């Protein structure tokens, strides 16, 4: 839902870098989006393309990687990823229980990010 405003922030940051680096063209933009966020990579991609219209980032390849949830279980000490079921209608449903011991005393350690990782530019 807030894909629009997050995309706007990402786009401003990229444009800022274009100006700072005096880039002639942006070739590639790498983004990581955690599966625990309510952000949809397809929508982010769509909005970024709108914001980059008529800028040096217009033809940039936008690479969005989805990152799985990382959890720590306070029950059994399991540290690792959990699987996301993607078959729910609107949003993927994340099981909130530990895959090892089944308890739901888990702490989220990752998978809740929206990271502008790097950009490749041409000067």
């Amino acid at each position, binding site marked *: *839902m807030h894909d629009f405003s997050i995309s706007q922030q990402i786009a401003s940051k990229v444009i800022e870098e274009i100006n700072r680096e005096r880039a002639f063209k942006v070739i590639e933009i790498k983004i990581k989006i955690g599966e625990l966020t309510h952000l949809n990579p397809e929508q982010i991609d769509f909005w970024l393309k709108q914001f980059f219209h008529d800028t040096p980032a217009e033809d940039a390849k936008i690479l969005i990687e989805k990152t799985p949830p990382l959890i720590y279980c306070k029950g059994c000490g399991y540290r690792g990823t959990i699987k996301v079921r993607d078959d729910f209608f609107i949003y993927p449903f994340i099981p909130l229980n530990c895959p090892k011991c089944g308890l739901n005393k888990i702490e989220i350690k990752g998978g809740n990010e929206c990271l502008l990782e790097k950009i490749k530019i041409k000067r």
Partner: protein
Amino acid sequence: MDIIEPEEGEILDIELEEDFLEKNRQLSVKNRALLDKNKVRAIDVMGSIGSGKTSLIQLLLSILGKKFRIAVIAGDLTTSIDAERLRQPEVKIIQVNTGKECHLDARLIERALKSLPLSSTDLLFIENVGNLICPADFPLGTHQRIVVISVTEGPWMVVKHPYIFRDADIVVINKIDLAEAMQVSPEKLTQDVSGINPNAKVIPVSCRYKKGIFEVVSALELNLSNKGII
């Protein structure tokens, strides 16, 4: 000093590593520190549209207003209808209009906190934008999070929006006076919440008939001594 300039046409990789959601989390930590410094207990009231967030805060104000110095930050897209509803002579109210935004974020709260008399405030209610989805991504720095749902939203409200319940301290199931007519079971909703977050206190409430409000007050675990509530 020699400066080595890149040649025309050179390709450069620029590492940015900027996390746009982490920025909000960091700001929320700052907000929390400011609240703690001023001994203000802050409560984020989230919930769907029409679930009864404003009604609940109204009732809490009428009970707690005599004992605590209360402030309210009312978040909404455009209007100040909720802020008007909550207006009381002794309560300081700030309206935050998010424009097109579907949630409050830590930056908006940081700005709102600047215009509140924090040193003479004990309790701060933040009414989030009516939405069960987006506020889950944006912690504000409050001490407690209440999620308000109501039986008129049907039986699947909880299971369809697990994230927002994951971090809730208190879940209010409002409009239980209509449960029978709606054929929605508050017990089932309670089970759904417990399945996601066993630590959340689930309280059936009827704001219209003022039922369950004192249970909400006691779940807030407020110490009655002034400025000693944290």
